[in-house]
């Protein structure tokens, strides 16, 4: 059994702790008494992954074996998660490749001719050929790309089908090919509890019309948290579940394959980043110093390239296949085993170091809006039951928040940052006043469809992701953040952690309790 998660209480013996800050990192001393939440150690990897996949396909949960579902003359669509998973990208062979090869092998053996592969990009950018090749492997790529392996297009109205509307008035519009297939096989990587389940097909293969019912401020404010998909806890998951049910009721047959990975995030020589600091060897300490020096000295472009080339040596910890709900239940259990750490009570201040990569800046730039999404959207929500920080508390993040955008990937982000956020940071106002305009802008639609741009509405969703945190927190302070960018986001910038604590004192008092969520590797605080 691997070591469970752990909450450290900083004492005088505690060494300085590693804190990520974008494309950089530091060792930071924390005040005595600070609680530090560490994830469980990496779960043991499955040695025979192909064997586990074959077993999952042959003995699925609440479904017939995949081989029995495949028949000559049928229409088979295989959809799989896009570049936003896992983070950082997985060292080859990617788990999607291994699963796809087994599925396609079965299809070939069963005489299925009409097979299409779709990257479930939803409103994300189209993956490039190289990125697809890395995800699916050379054999699948050579056999299917580009004719039968395509990115989903949420703006190709000729190829979108309105399957129906839920009892809550949510339109379920998905990729026509998928909707008309005899079977959809969805291949998922479940990195966090938010992923997978009914969020795969109804969102991954949806149009803007199909995404809008749950990607909105009201839903976000009632999702406490996104990482807790139990019914009644997360409005977004409840909505997705309704959509999933509607698809099922309308005869859309989905065979879900979900996989979980352990939290072996950083490869050597960055292995020290996976360890608890007091367990660092002398070699780890020397590596830290060398890496820190090299990273600080490197020109920003080179530094960016080095970080973006990191491929994680994840181990596969679980493969489950079958009915979406039955599969997802098992997936979540495995995921929680890897990520859940019990924390007693809330604190006045929550501290996080934001890493260099989030779901939407793989091979790209983490612009200020993505910083907002990663910090207040994802990391704030890495909890079950209640947030790590008390209502009205402060959140301190470490990140340089550079005023920098990827012009190809994030064109609408630039305008959103310049035009919308300069007017207001209130999510509801932004939604009602600006969303439609950006969502329907023909230039953004063109760039989404023909270039590699995120959909025009995507920066809005990034802002909504943080709506719950914005509503909940009393103060957001960014250590080392660009003051102009922070000001635009409605944050405050501090030059040092000590200054940030001083500033937070105005909100939470002079002797605050502090909890540092030590990520990555990711951990979900189960706050009691």
């Amino acid at each position, binding site marked *: 059994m691997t070591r469970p998660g752990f909450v450290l209480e900083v004492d005088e*013996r*505690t060494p300085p702790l590693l804190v990520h800050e974008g494309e950089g990192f530091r*060792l930071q*001393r924390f005040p005595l008494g600070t609680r530090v939440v560490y994830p469980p150690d990496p779960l043991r990897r499955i040695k025979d992954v192909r064997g586990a996949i074959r077993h999952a396909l042959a003995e699925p949960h609440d479904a017939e074996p995949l081989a029995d579902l495949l028949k000559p003359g049928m229409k088979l669509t295989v959809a799989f998660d896009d570049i936003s998973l896992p983070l950082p990208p997985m060292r080859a062979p990617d788990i999607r490749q291994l699963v796809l090869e087994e599925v396609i092998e079965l299809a070939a053996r069963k005489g299925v001719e009409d097979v299409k592969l779709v990257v479930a990009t939803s409103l994300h950018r189209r993956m490039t050929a190289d990125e697809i090749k890395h995800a699916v492997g050379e054999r699948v790529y050579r056999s299917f790309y580009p004719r039968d392996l395509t990115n989903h297009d949420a703006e190709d109205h000729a190829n979108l089908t309105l399957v129906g509307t839920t009892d809550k008035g949510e339109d379920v519009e998905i990729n026509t090919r998928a909707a008309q297939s005899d079977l959809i096989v969805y291949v998922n990587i479940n990195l966090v509890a938010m992923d997978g389940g009914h969020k795969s097909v109804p969102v991954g293969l949806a149009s803007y019309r199909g995404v809008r019912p749950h990607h909105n401020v009201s839903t976000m404010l009632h999702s406490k948290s996104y990482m807790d998909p139990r019914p009644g806890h997360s409005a977004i998951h409840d909505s997705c579940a309704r959509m999933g049910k509607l698809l099922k009721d309308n005869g859309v047959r989905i065979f879900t394959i979900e996989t979980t990975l352990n939290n072996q995030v950083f490869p050597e020589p960055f292995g020290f980043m996976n360890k608890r600091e*007091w*367990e660092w060897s002398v070699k780890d300490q020397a590596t830290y*110093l060398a890496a820190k*020096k090299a990273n600080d000295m490197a020109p920003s472009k080179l530094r960016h390239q080095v970080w973006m080339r990191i491929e994680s040596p994840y181990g596969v910890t679980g493969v489950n296949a079958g009915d979406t709900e039955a599969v997802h239940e098992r997936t979540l259990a495995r995921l929680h085993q890897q990520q859940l750490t019990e924390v007693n009570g809330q604190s006045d201040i929550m501290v996080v170091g934001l890493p260099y990569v989030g779901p939407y800046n793989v091979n790209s730039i983490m612009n200020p809006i993505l910083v907002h999404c990663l910090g207040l959207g994802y990391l704030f929500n890495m909890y079950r039951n209640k947030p790590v920080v008390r209502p009205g508390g402060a959140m301190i993040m470490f990140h340089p928040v550079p005023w920098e955008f990827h012009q190809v990937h994030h064109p609408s982000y630039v305008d959103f940052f310049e035009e919308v956020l300069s007017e207001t940071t209130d999510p509801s106002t932004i939604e009602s006043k600006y969303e439609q305009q950006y969502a329907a802008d023909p230039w953004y639609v063109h760039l989404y469809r023909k270039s590699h741009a995120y959909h025009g509405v995507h920066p809005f969703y990034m802002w909504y992701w943080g709506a719950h945190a914005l509503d909940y927190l009393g103060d957001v302070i960014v250590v080392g953040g660009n*003051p102009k960018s922070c000001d635009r986001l409605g944050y405050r910038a501090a*030059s040092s952690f000590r200054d940030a604590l001083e500033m937070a004192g105005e909100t939470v008092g002079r002797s605050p309790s502090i909890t540092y969520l030590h990520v990555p590797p990711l951990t979900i605080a189960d706050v009691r």
Partner: protein
Amino acid sequence: MAPKKRSFADEVRNVAEGFRWGRRPAVPRNAESHTPPPERWAFPTDWARTEAGRAARDAILLLVMKPLVWNETSPEVFGLDNLEGMRPPVMFISNHSSHLDATLILTTLPPTWRNKTATAAAKDYFFDVWWRSAFTALVYGGFPIERGGGERATDKAKDLIRDGWNLIVFPEGTRSPDGWVQRFRHGSARLAVEMDMPVVPIAIVGAYAAMPKGRFWPMPGRPPIRVRYGLPLHPRPDETHQALSLRMQQSIAELFDEDRTSWWEARRRAERGETPKLAGPAGARWRRTWEGSRPIRRSGEPPAWR
């Protein structure tokens, strides 16, 4: 205001202080039960037992350590004649109440014996950081031994005995907290039985009063210390290590008795089974420490002018 970048020197200082370079690594208190024991890596010590290592040790012991200890304390040595006629390897065992003990034994042993003697030192204390490991290996011919025992704890000791090395072992396992002799652990007796090697008991009297646990320099006033070598004990055929361990404790108790009274009186008491125990007085802890730290009498007549 742009954040001030920390210089590399500051970064190194931060790491050095935070990770306690040169000091014993520490685990945060509430992480102790969640932290696995460090890897069983053994600091290499064979280099300290080479010809060059031994020459260096002799030079350090005789030119630095002995003058230092002899200047700060007043050691006297008795019973070295008990080593006559013996051949290595033997195991020197002693009560252990001070950091002076190993130095006192090594600097009082005849050169031919010292030259082939190594000291068993607790791995968790003497081999925790590189400089302490190097010092222990070089100056004491030290080699790491696991206090907790275990199957592999004595592997290195056995190798050394097979190579003809004498060992200095403190069967108590750690320094006495109050000056009185603690219970002997059986590891040393088991080793002696397994390797069928003689055991030479040594009583070090007064070292606790001179430099107790917690001090790193002797008390002022050149406190007296007496080092008494006893008659070697040979494991008897079919003797268990528990029985040998008892004999070892008894022999050291007799040496203490001899120091307090005389050889003749100590022998008679031993025959009657009345040798005073070394466990110290029962009762409050302070009483044990108080009695244990009582300075021992100086040998000989007091000077006329005092």
